[in-house]
């Protein structure tokens, strides 16, 4: 039974289902939530779903993390390192954007006392 869960396919399936669920939670969040913080959080949830999805799909049972030290002689049996590098970068960027967004939000809240994005409509003709 547990072996079943330990196979690559089932792990991938679980990850796909899980990340999709997460993605749609985020999707639901940005589609329904009007609070700026919640929207930003929803974005992050969506991004996290993507990261999970990507990293998860590159994981295969039996492979190890691509950490190279002095003892490593062969480079086989490791997962592909590129996705992890990419995801790391993306996480950093996401963080930066989140921070920027929150700082905007705070400043905006200080000025107006609002954080409802659907009511940000002073920029209009």
């Amino acid at each position, binding site marked *: 039974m547990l072996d079943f869960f330990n196979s690559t396919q089932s792990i991938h399936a679980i990850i796909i289902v899980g990340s999709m669920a997460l993605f749609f939670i985020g999707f639901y969040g*940005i589609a329904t939530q009007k609070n*700026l913080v919640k*929207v*930003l959080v929803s*974005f992050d949830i*969506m*991004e996290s779903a*993507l990261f999970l*999805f*990507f990293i998860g*799909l590159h994981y295969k049972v039996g492979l190890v993390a691509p950490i190279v030290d002095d003892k490593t002689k062969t480079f086989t049996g490791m997962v*592909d390192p*590129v*996705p992890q590098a*990419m995801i790391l*970068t*993306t996480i950093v*960027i996401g963080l*930066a*954007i989140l921070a*920027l*967004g929150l700082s*905007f*939000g705070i*400043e*905006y809240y200080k*000025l*107006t006392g609002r954080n409802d*994005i659907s009511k*940000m409509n*002073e*920029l*209009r*003709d």
Partner: protein
Amino acid sequence: MSLGYYFLLPVIFSFLTPYFKKLGSFTLRGSSILLSFILFVQSIAYTTMKLPQISQFSIKPPLGIAFVLDGYSLLFLLIFTFSAVIVSFYMLWYFKVNPKRDEARFYVFFNMLIAGSIGMILSCDIFNLYIFFEIVGICSYTLSAYNKDKLGLESGIKYLIIGSIASIFIVFAIMLIYLQIGTVNLGLIAQRFHEIDPKISVLIVLMLFIGFGTKAELFPMNFWAPDIYQGSISSVNGLFSSVVAKAYLFVFFHLFYLFGLSSKYMLFVMVIGAITFLVSEFTALNQTNVKRLFAYSTLGQLGILFMALSTNSSETVSGALFHLTSHSISKLLIFLALGILIHHLKSTKISIFGDFKSRFLTIIFAIGFLSILGIPPFSGFVGKILILKGFALSHNYSAIAFILLVSIVEAVYFFRLTAMMLDKKGTKRVVHVGFINYILLCVLAALIVIFGLFPSLLIHYTDLAANALINPTDYLKFALGVGL
């Protein structure tokens, strides 16, 4: 000089900015001008070299990261660096008349914006592309919120939210590509793109389309764009219009032709472009805010460019690139002049065009408007007629009719502004342009006229660019590292 400096120098400058600031604003401004000047001169230097050029970092592509400069990116490089020079000179005036503004913040993000934009057009690695995309994004969010007032912050937040959506789509697309092909090198992706399962490939294309289309202000995804223009200062508007939008457009069509999508999606992009053009020009008619008005005009022109660039014929594409160049110059001209106007009249209502008195500005605006409308002997005319000629050669008469008909709508509001400027009634306030702006606007106007009278100066480069865009074999060779 390695192509990497295009990114590196501005980044170094940005990091050094706090230090420069301590040295005094003169150093800050001067070094920024110097920097953009160096980049521009270097870009001009590239026009004499054999293209494509490549700069690789540590590992040879396709495994390593590299910058590739072909004819297509050279044109954009010239436009971007030139805009950077003009804007950094313009900021001298801006900070002189607005002494309390935070200069360092502007210069940091301005230079990072230029760096990111140049990185986007030079990068031959889709993930790097994404990183530069985000750099440009962050810089532009910050720049649009440069006015830390309600409007500025609102535009910053809006831009940020939209940018986040676009980046999610792009990240998703890149991940799917990597899952399918296992590489992020543009050359390899281009080679193997047709191997992808068609359904996934549609998904990828759509995600890229939505991602870059949103940023490049295509129709159903561009409802945010006028807000951003309205909320930010006019020099930033000029940058958005002539650099940022153009950079996204560059990537859009770069991928479009690299991935060989032109045969399948040409009509789709053309229709979307046409709708963008139509909707924006019609919407612009009803605007009372100048910045929004010119934002719509920019959207409309992007629509034409999308129509013309997707045709897969080197004639039309060359014309479109000519039009793009001319549009960048004209919009820069208009936004900079507009900044002067807004500063003096303290309003962004359309009525300011009827309230100022300056023969110089009137002429400058008139040249800009006529050029955008494609009226000889200004540069816009050559671009427009080349586009029309290209459509005619492919017997696409409906596109010709469409462009010309909508252009009349466009003429309505441009000439309404002109008429307001020329109107003698009402009280007029004298507007002093200032020496630097005088020179800058003269240079831009002169370029418009020169490219209108001697278009062969520019057509050489647009032809090069068009060929590089449509037949990216040379580019692929370099991107794959074969030629090294």
